[in-house]
């Protein structure tokens, strides 16, 4: 169950030359700045772009192979697409839009229609025209329309980029629910670290038309070698609500210790993701006494990377990776080097309680 992609396409101003292979499962994020080639890759997978050279195979089924003149046209590929601009058909009602792909897939499953309408909260919109929908509503309808075509793979091309923060927050939980409730694999294109941190299982970093890095989201986001490619650098790892303490803090457990954070209104046992920005992680040689920070983790330094006037320090705590960004001066003063033991000091308030509070993973 794999997705194999290798593409070469020369545009007037840039060259895409990317190849990757990922499991056809969960959410794969294509991450990179604008112009990195993310959308081109998605268009090629969908069959909307015929690249100059390339090969794409889904579970071994070849849909594109320029060497052997194989090109499966888009309608026969069964790739669901959600575009940034939604692309709803303006001359049809929301319901007709939703049923467009469903009808063409040769099924008339009304239970499925009802389930998707329910999942995305579309009931009240069905008779409306797309022109009368808000940006967030359009995104949800576009998502529903793609899902109802029962694709083998869902391609999301910056589906939230056109939305403001409030609309984003409205859609993200739906995407999380979808990720967790369906077996549908997704390729998610984004240039926003927070979306990637919340949704992705696997990350492919793209830079100037090439793959700069690839791996599980928890490894990639805390990889100091990839730091320069990540605008908001920091570790992401899975955790679980353990208990709510009398002092107003919530204790989270993770593979390698516990973390105290400001009260999270989630039941004990709730799984979530925690993100710690590199700038927010302090390092100490000895356990600091009388300090306001609530969390002191015993860690081991695994790597150090110098970059400009600061240094990124890779840490391991149990089974998870952390990363700390400190000044070069601090690095020298503490004489930090790989294989040393060191304490990571984390203020509770820097652990964003909003992040993934809804993700049931």
């Amino acid at each position, binding site marked *: 169950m794999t997705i194999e992609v290798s593409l070469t396409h020369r545009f007037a101003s840039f060259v895409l030359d990317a190849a990757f292979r990922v499991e056809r499962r969960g959410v794969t994020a294509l991450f990179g700045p604008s112009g990195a080639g993310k959308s081109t890759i998605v268009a090629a997978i*969908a*069959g*909307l772009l015929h690249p100059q050279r390339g090969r794409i195979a889904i579970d071994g089924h070849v849909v594109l192979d320029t060497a052997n003149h194989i090109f499966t*046209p*888009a*309608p026969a*590929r*069964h*790739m*669901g*697409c959600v*575009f940034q*601009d939604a*692309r709803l*058909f*303006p*001359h049809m009602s929301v319901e007709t839009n939703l049923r*467009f*792909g469903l009808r*063409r*897939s040769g099924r008339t499953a009304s239970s499925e229609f009802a389930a998707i309408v329910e999942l995305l909260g579309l009931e009240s919109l069905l008779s*409306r*025209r797309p*022109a*009368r929908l808000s940006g967030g509503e359009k995104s949800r309808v576009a998502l529903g*329309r*793609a899902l109802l*075509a029962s694709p083998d793979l869902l391609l999301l091309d910056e589906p939230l980029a056109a939305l403001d923060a409030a609309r984003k927050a409205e859609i993200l939980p739906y995407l999380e629910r979808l990720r967790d409730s369906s077996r549908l694999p997704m390729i998610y294109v984004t240039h926003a670290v927070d979306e990637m941190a919340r949704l992705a299982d696997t990350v492919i970093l793209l830079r100037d038309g090439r793959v700069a890095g690839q791996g599980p989201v928890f490894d990639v986001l805390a990889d100091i070698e990839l730091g320069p490619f990540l605008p908001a650098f920091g570790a992401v790892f899975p955790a679980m609500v353990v208990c709510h303490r009398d002092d107003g803090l919530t204790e989270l457990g993770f593979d390698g210790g516990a973390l105290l954070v400001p009260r999270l209104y989630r039941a004990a046992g709730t799984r979530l993701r925690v993100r710690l920005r590199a700038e927010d992680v302090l390092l100490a040689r000895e356990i600091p006494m009388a300090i306001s920070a609530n969390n002191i983790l015993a860690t081991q330094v695994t790597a150090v990377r110098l970059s400009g006037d600061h240094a990124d320090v890779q840490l391991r705590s149990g089974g998870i990776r952390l990363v700390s960004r400190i000044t070069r001066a601090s690095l020298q003063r503490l004489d930090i080097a790989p294989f040393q033991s060191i304490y990571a000091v984390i203020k509770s308030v820097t652990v964003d309680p909003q992040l993934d509070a809804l993700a049931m993973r």
Partner: protein
Amino acid sequence: MLSPAESEALLLSLRVSLVGVGCALPFALAVALLLSRVRFPGRSLAEALCYLPLVLPPVVVGYLFLILLGTHEPVGKWLVDTLGVRFAFSWTGAALTSGIITFPLQLRAMRLALESQDRGLAEAAATLGAGAVDRLWNITLPLALPGILAGVITAFAASLGEFGAIITFVSNIPGETRTLPLAIYSALQTPGGEVEAARLCGISIALALVGVSLAELMGRRFRAAYER
């Protein structure tokens, strides 16, 4: 209200324009699709050729038809002998002339509508399993419908006023090829026919007003339908 000659000219005008523009419509649409969606060698030449009737003097168009489709000319003779269609000195010739002369007007409006269309919508339809014909029929054409209608109405209105090409090709035969403009011309050629000419002008103006209001109404309908 209207004299028999007047209603004859009015009905003939409507028939000639309806048939002429109606028959040209599928061709205009096909050419518009071809020019806006397909790249092929000689595209600029084909485009120039399509717009020729708009820039040629109508008399020239009429004359070209005369020497091409006259009953004694090879093409015209062949049409009569094999298909039984006679264009010379017949209302069908007037319809053909109207259709060809106003062809560029239809073509232009349709091309604009097709070229300004968001191609992303057809792409989205493709990813949802819609093949080429499906996309054309359910996405591209419905979205271009306002432009198509605008083209048809403009062509129809222009066709009602066609004079030079018709009189050159099919002459001025009462009840057969004497459309409104030709009837006005004939009235002006007759001593004391000014009143008749004025009445016919009035009919023309009324017809034009109805056409324009109809177009406006349809435009509003479409906008309302898309924004509901």
